[in-house]
């Protein structure tokens, strides 16, 4: 097989045409304007010393940086959703050194709930998964991917992060409209059709949120429910992380059951820290944390599921009351 031409030696026009994001890469380095040349390598070679001093770069490093960047892009473009069939966590020890004695296999589409008081070790558990612990974290746990010890390089690959996180106190801080914001994310993920993905995400978010918003609504002006809906739709469609950690989905203004179903349909492994009776029983199982370790794993039983149905009924009744209150009705009759 002939050796592949390095990207920096491709005719410049072809490079920009096939990889339009290279322009953005150069702009990020402060090199939006380059001296003319047939290839990127020749343009970089023609840069004058003063310009390099100004942007704070060394000439000999530039080509290596570009090559490393393109390598990352190639990794990003490789399909990887299908490559994770399971994540296995092998128990270590709790804060007192007592063995946890469990092996837990998490599969795409499954919901696992996490319960326990603050400080009981929930964050450490997630950190172990994210770090792909191999007995080298304070808990001594080990994490396997598809039943095998993962490549150590994977720990540091930001584009292959295992865990995407959605929590209560997260906000949008960018000053952009919902559409601009999602497009920006889609571009950074290098998806083939950013406009189409953006539309899908906005539609999904609107179907999850109680009140509608438009593509032009600034993300900072979204209500709590709308923000959460947009974050969930975005993680479902754009994040490459196979595991989604949800830190409690609040009751206000979002269809929680559908939100979970959406993530499960996208083959995400869902971990949810919650003490909400309906959400906690919706999962396949729940991990009970105590003293820094997993004290128990409870599979949701048939009896629990029967109770879930009753809780859902109660929830529906409360929702009806909330609705009636919002409409200015009197709450005197049967509810």
């Amino acid at each position, binding site marked *: 097989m002939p050796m592949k031409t390095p990207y920096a030696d491709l005719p410049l026009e072809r490079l920009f045409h096939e990889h339009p994001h290279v322009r953005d890469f150069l702009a990020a380095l402060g090199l939006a304007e380059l001296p003319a040349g047939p290839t990127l390598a020749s343009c970089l070679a023609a840069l004058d010393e003063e310009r390099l001093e100004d942007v704070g770069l060394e000439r000999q490093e530039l080509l290596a940086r570009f090559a490393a960047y393109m390598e990352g892009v190639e990794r990003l473009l490789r399909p990887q959703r299908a490559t994770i069939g399971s994540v296995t966590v092998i128990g270590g020890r709790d804060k007192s050194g007592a063995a946890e004695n469990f092996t837990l296999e998490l599969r795409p589409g499954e919901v696992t709930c996490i319960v326990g008081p603050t400080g009981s070790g929930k964050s450490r558990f997630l950190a172990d998964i994210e*770090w792909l612990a191999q007995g080298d974290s304070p808990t001594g746990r080990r994490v396997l991917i598809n039943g095998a010890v993962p490549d150590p390089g994977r720990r540091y690959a930001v584009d292959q992060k295992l865990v995407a996180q959605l929590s209560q106190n997260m906000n*949008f801080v960018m000053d952009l409209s919902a559409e601009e914001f999602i497009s920006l994310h889609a571009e950074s993920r290098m998806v083939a059709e950013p406009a189409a993905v953006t539309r899908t995400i906005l539609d999904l978010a609107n179907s999850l949120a109680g009140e509608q918003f438009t593509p032009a609504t600034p993300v900072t002006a979204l209500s709590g429910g709308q923000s959460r809906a947009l974050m969930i739709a975005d993680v479902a469609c754009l994040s490459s992380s196979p595991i989604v950690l949800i830190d409690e989905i609040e009751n206000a203004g979002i269809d929680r059951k559908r939100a979970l179903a959406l993530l499960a349909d996208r083959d995400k492994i869902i971990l949810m820290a919650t003490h909400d009776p309906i959400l906690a029983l919706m999962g396949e199982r729940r991990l009970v944390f105590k003293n820094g370790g997993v004290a128990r794993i409870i599979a949701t039983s048939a009896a629990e599921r029967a109770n879930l149905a009753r809780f859902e009924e109660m929830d529906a009744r409360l929702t009806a009351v909330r609705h009636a209150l919002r409409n200015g009705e009197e709450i005197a009759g049967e509810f």
Partner: protein
Amino acid sequence: MRLITVAGPPSSGKTAIICKAAEALRAEGVSVGVVKFDCLSSGDQALYERRGIPARTGLSGNLCPDHFFVSNIEECLAWGVRSGFDLLISESAGLCNRCAPHIKDVCAVCVIDNLSGVETPRKIGPMLKMADIVVVTKGDIVSQAEREVFAHRVRQVNAGAVIIHVNGLTGQGGHELGRLLRGAAPVVAVEGRLLRFSMPAALCSYCLGQRRIGADFQMGNVKKMELE
């Protein structure tokens, strides 16, 4: 002993992540000392010492802080060796975003926070571009999408670095950062070593105390903007 240079914009969380990493390292029997470089005042030495981390402070006053750093790092290293630390961390704020305390073959860390906005990685020079490890903080308060866009922007300007998220409040990621720092190459002396990049050229009349404005008073390194 291992030496680590940690730099990052003011308030990005440098002290917090150093504390978390140092605490995790200490739990594993690794002794850590810190030298804090600041400009006018710093309460961080007390903050470190309250956690049982030996620390020294250098205030640059009216000198350029990064030039002050280079002129003192050798002596700081000697202090670290005398104190018998396994790891010495120097902490400095990159105030103009163009300076960097990073030294060739000495582990270099840059700390930046998600809240500073997605344009920030483009605005920081060699301090970020030439770091070996980029620590991203305050990820718990922004959306997953923003974290991913931010990390992408960091990768654009420094594709080779290890990017790690650390939460300075809960400490999540601190243990992992400690692991990375432990892997740094040992350093015996820095005399004769090279900075990873030159500091911005200074030395104009204003460096020497001139206060009056006007072309007649500008001497040395003077650069004019193009406004047309």
